[in-house]
């Protein structure tokens, strides 16, 4: 919903004028229709607020399922721009636009090979352009954003991006540049541990005839130095970190199917109130399986505690294990507090909507959904705040 305030910089009485006919004594009052778009001396500020969310994770923009969960919470299905470049990385829904930061590569695949830099290296990215365009979108101006084609490895012709209500920038470096970081209203870092990364990449790549276990291992090892130098340090700036680790419930498990997921939430972030279990700020360890709820092996275990993360106060909510049935999920949801849901069971409903997405039965899906609800809450609070501020300014 866009609220527009029209300020006319001309004198107010120019839209009305009086004519008097010479013979009669009648006065005709005309009112000219304001032609808002063509008159450059009227200043229109349409205050559709745009909030910018940053999402950082490895491997380019393959966080498709996370993005789709997020956009689904805000409403509407996210689709690529209609009729445009089929290799576009952008997703657009009614409320949200997701931009892949790979589009701001300054060097395409051939350029990077020549200069011997990986895509992880900041030298392969144009942070000035990134900053300008995110700033423009945030202030309500449409931009022509370049497209990086992952199939050809080239930079294609730009596409037009309209400023949305919620802008999500996802990629390797959303929080790398300080100016871009300052534009973010909320930032998330997806921290996958090496064991889980390995297991996921095996699942992803083993079906390809080019890959083998050795090649996958070598690929991860080769990426490590650049990843540790450029990508990993961004997690200290994130407002929420989703850490994915191997489970502690199954001794010596190396399949990576059961996961231990930690949602690390920074305290003191504006409009963001961390989720908690039972008693805010205390330390809780909770196994929901018991008399009221029967779970199958390995069950579910929750932990909640305050902690310190890179010198910040944080609250950590952790889930180990997986959901097997719907009632486990709703049971867990009913015991979590500060979820920012609009009705009882909303988290469960959102999880069910995408039940075939990976992570739907464990903490990854659960926390991604919760983060989505938190962002929606942040957006609504921001809008409400700006509206009251404007109302007060108008009264004064």
């Amino acid at each position: 919903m866009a609220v527009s305030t029209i300020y006319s910089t001309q004198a107010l009485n120019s839209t009305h004028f009086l004519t008097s006919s010479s013979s009669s004594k009648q006065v005709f009052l005309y009112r000219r229709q304001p032609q808002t778009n063509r008159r450059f001396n009227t200043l229109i500020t349409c205050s559709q607020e745009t909030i910018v969310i940053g999402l950082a994770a490895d491997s380019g923009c393959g966080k498709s399922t996370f993005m789709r969960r997020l956009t689904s919470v805000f409403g509407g299905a996210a689709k690529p721009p209609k009729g445009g470049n089929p290799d576009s990385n952008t997703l657009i829904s009614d409320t949200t636009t997701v931009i892949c930061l790979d589009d701001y590569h300054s060097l395409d695949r051939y350029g990077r090979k020549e200069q011997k830099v990986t895509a992880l290296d900041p030298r392969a990215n144009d942070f000035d352009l990134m900053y300008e365009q995110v700033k423009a979108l945030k202030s309500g101006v449409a931009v022509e954003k370049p497209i990086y084609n992952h199939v050809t490895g080239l930079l294609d012709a730009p596409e037009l991006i309209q400023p949305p209500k919620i802008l999500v920038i996802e990629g390797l470096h959303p929080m790398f540049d300080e100016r871009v970081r300052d534009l973010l209203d909320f930032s998330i870092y997806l921290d996958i541990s090496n064991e889980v990364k390995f297991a996921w990449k095996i699942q992803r790549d083993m079906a390809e005839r080019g890959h083998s276990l050795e090649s996958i291992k070598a690929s991860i090892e080769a990426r490590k130095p650049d990843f540790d130098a450029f990508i990993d340090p961004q997690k200290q700036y994130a407002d929420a970190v989703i850490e994915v680790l191997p489970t502690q419930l199954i001794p010596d498990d190396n399949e990576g199917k059961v996961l231990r997921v930690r949602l690390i939430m920074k305290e003191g972030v504006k409009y963001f109130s961390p989720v908690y279990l039972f008693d805010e700020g205390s330390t809780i360890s909770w196994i929901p399986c018991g008399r009221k709820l029967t779970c199958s092996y390995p069950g579910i275990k929750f932990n909640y505690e305050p902690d310190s993360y890179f010198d910040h106060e944080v609250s950590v909510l952790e889930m180990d294990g997986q959901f097997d049935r719907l009632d486990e999920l709703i049971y867990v949801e009913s015991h979590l507090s500060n979820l920012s849901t609009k009705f009882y069971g909303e988290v469960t409903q959102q999880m069910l909507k995408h039940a075939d997405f990976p992570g739907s039965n464990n903490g990854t899906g659960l926390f991604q959904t919760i983060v989505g609800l938190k962002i929606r809450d942040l957006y609504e609070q921001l809008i409400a705040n700006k509206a009251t501020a404007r109302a007060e300014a108008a009264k004064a």
Partner: protein
Amino acid sequence: MMMMMSAAASHVRVVLPLHQQRRTISIGSEIFRLSQTEPRRFKLTIATNVTAKYKGTKMREEKLSEMIEEKVKEATEVCDTDERSEECRVAWDEVEEVSQARSDLRIKLKLLNQDPLESFWQENPETDECRVYQD
């Protein structure tokens, strides 16, 4: 909806969509080459149950799979000489990029039933990429 047989190998004329014509002539000849080789359909059906609807998507899938194979070979060779060299890192980064692109395409088709060419077809029904793929 146009239904055309997709591979009379000897005389397939590939017309690239306008936005790609500027830059990807070399890709065009590669694609042309692809359509003359035997389609490795059986491999792809292991990975995904939903096959591509449009010929352009099928071409992309095959191209990406071939690229993965090529680039893994290349990276293994480059890294044989020096594991810690920059060339080695860049080579594996390319493998990663192409593997991820392949996986994204698979997710789009399988999980979301969204062929990336669906909306492109609606605006450009005449292009060769949008011919419906028939196995």
